[in-house]
């Protein structure tokens, strides 16, 4: 009897412990940065920093994981409830637009791994989702300026020559 109740208490405590580990009612304030100039960089960087606010206090080493565009990343802890997620991409492959970052805590991550083992396309409801908008990077002008200047000046000179011969005709 004592053993049974003891087991119950331990189980409840464990479950309680697990529940307490997870973030209740998560609220996030996020900022992001992406490389806007692709002329001298070899990779385009995407960085997002966010502050997580929960109704309950989070444990010391509360880890977060992220999945974006099929990539699995770990969130780096940069301060009290502040995390940073970053990745790089080839300039040719980097697409502009909104990138959805799904953030999961350890529990969610573990359940995702378990689900993926059975079905690779499985997904788990994320703890929170951040949208990172990349406006595109500038990789240089379409037409080189000296070629454009040459072309325009030749056009104008040709017009001038033609008109002159018309006048003198």
């Amino acid at each position: 009897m004592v053993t049974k109740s003891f087991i119950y208490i331990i189980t409840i405590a464990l479950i309680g412990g697990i529940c307490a580990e997870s973030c209740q009612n998560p609220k996030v304030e996020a900022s992001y940065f992406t490389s806007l100039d692709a002329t001298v960089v070899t990779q385009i960087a995407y960085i997002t920093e966010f502050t997580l606010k929960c109704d309950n206090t989070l444990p010391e080493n509360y880890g977060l994981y992220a999945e974006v565009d099929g990539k699995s990343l770990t969130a780096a802890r940069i301060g009290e409830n502040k995390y940073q997620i970053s990745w790089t991409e080839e300039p040719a492959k980097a697409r502009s637009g909104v990138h959805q970052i799904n953030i999961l805590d350890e529990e969610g991550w573990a359940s995702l791994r378990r689900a993926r083992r059975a079905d690779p396309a499985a997904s788990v409801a994320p703890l929170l989702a951040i949208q990172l908008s990349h406006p595109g990077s500038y990789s240089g002008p379409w037409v080189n300026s000296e070629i454009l200047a040459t072309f325009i000046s030749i056009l104008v000179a040709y017009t001038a020559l033609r008109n002159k011969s018309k006048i003198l005709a």
Partner: protein
Amino acid sequence: MSGKNNKAFTKEEELLLQDFSRNVSTKSSALFYGNAFIVSAIPIWLFWRVHSLEISTAIIWFILVTAASTWLLALAYRNTKFQLKHRVAVRREDAVAREMSRKLADDKKMSRKEKDERILWKKNEVADYEATTYSIFYNNALFLTIVILSSFYILRTFTPTVNYIVSLTAASGLLALLSTGTK
């Protein structure tokens, strides 16, 4: 009366002389030299910013070449204007005559001779102005095209100083030479 006739006659002669002379009025001359100076000075900015030619090292060359180019371009403007003026006058004379006749038709006090004189004067003025502006446009267009082509393509491998000197003197020299042609 006879004095007035003499005056009218002399004015026609004056116009004819002006027509056939290559000299330009002070105002035209100022316009030509001013324009030539501005257009010759523009490539300085091009060479400084794009071809990395330091102003402090090449200032003497800038001054000399700009002066030479200004003079040559002004010469080209003058000669081209002279070439064009007659042809422009021929093209515009009917339109000018029509417009002036319409304007002066109501004025009964003016004699026929004076009206003709005014029409002639207006034709000359219009042809002068059109030839001047077209000459400036034509020479500027060719000058800038030659400078761009020679500095970016032909003389690409030379040092910026040499590039500058040769591009500008070649462009303005070529234009001055072409303008002295008979056709």
